[in-house]
């Protein structure tokens, strides 16, 4: 029962250099908690103090925007792919 999580380079420092991880299936909150157990501090990079996704972090579960599927309560079934993407793109001033 695992899922694949792909992270941007900007989060590499939070996961010991890894940008592709396996995590336990469940809700998105479960997936984030599972990664946070192995890489403490990961959760606070993607969630705010209230436990919601930070406004500048987008998460896609098999190409669907997690915000449209319940936010951190969204289901992440076994075998799915989760992508964490900075909402900004950077480099245009």
């Amino acid at each position, binding site marked *: 029962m695992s899922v694949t999580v792909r992270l941007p380079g*900007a989060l590499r420092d939070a996961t010991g250099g890894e940008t592709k991880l396996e995590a336990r299936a469940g809700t998105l909150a479960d997936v984030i908690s599972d990664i946070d157990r192995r890489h403490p501090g990961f959760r606070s990079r993607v969630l705010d103090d209230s436990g919601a996704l930070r*406004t500048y972090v987008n998460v896609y579960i098999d190409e669907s925007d997690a915000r449209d599927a319940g936010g951190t309560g969204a289901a992440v079934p076994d075998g799915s792919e989760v992508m964490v993407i900075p909402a*900004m793109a*950077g480099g245009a001033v």
Partner: protein
Amino acid sequence: MTLTADLVRERVRGTILGRIGETPLVPLRRIGAGLRGELWAKIESANPGGSVKDRAALWMVIAAEDEGRLDDGAVVLDATSGNTGIALAMVSAVRGHRARLVMPDKVSLERKRIIRAFGAEVVLTDPLDGTDGAIREARRLAEIDLECVYVDQYSNPANPRAHELTTGPEIWSQTDGRLTHFVAGVGTSGTIVGVSAALRPRGVRIVAVQPDNALHGIDGWKHMPTALRPAIWDERAADEHRVMATDEAIVMTKRLAREEGIFSGVSGGAAVAAAAALAREQPGRIVVLIADGGERYLSTPLWE
């Protein structure tokens, strides 16, 4: 031929591109209340394409035309997070060029649609690679497709030149030369480097602001320690370097709308928050650049 403001203006006279620049400078009376320094904002959303990038896009295209690189149906190509893409698409539409813009997938829907509305082509890259991934793809396309003219906003001297010869002199004139600081964010760095060339010799201190970490939500800005370094960037163009947290930038973006009636993108909030911090520390007249408007981000969670 070296481009001058008169030459560029003459080239686009009688078109919408003639309205690029001469943007308003307004005081931030409420946000600036009680601070030691005085805050003034340069509102770049007043450009026809809706952002500061109109200036660089116009100058880069005119420079390429002058060099004869856009003859025979060439395609204007660049990597962008959005605003430059919109500006290049608009300028190309007016000048009769095709345009191809490379940007990370999953950028706000508005940007892709606006670019396509101007008739330009959008090439999407892996969103996990961010703007740097788009830059690498633009470089690859430039090598394999001889039709493409890669204007490369990150390396093109016409980008800072536009600011040296338009933005900087406008601010000097609008303040009657009475300003002490200029504050702006760093993305390509064209604004900071160009305005610095115009105003620093006149005694204005230049303050460059970057996001405080690699994962941030300040559109268009670069966290230089972890990003591909723009060739035009020169740290020495700024007298002072500051960093800004996204959360603080978002708070100020909302204050700008509610207290000053300025609907800005988050980068504008970030720049104003940095300018306000400076104004708390010292007296002076501080001009801060607000790069774009908030309409472009309506589909993002910020305004939900």
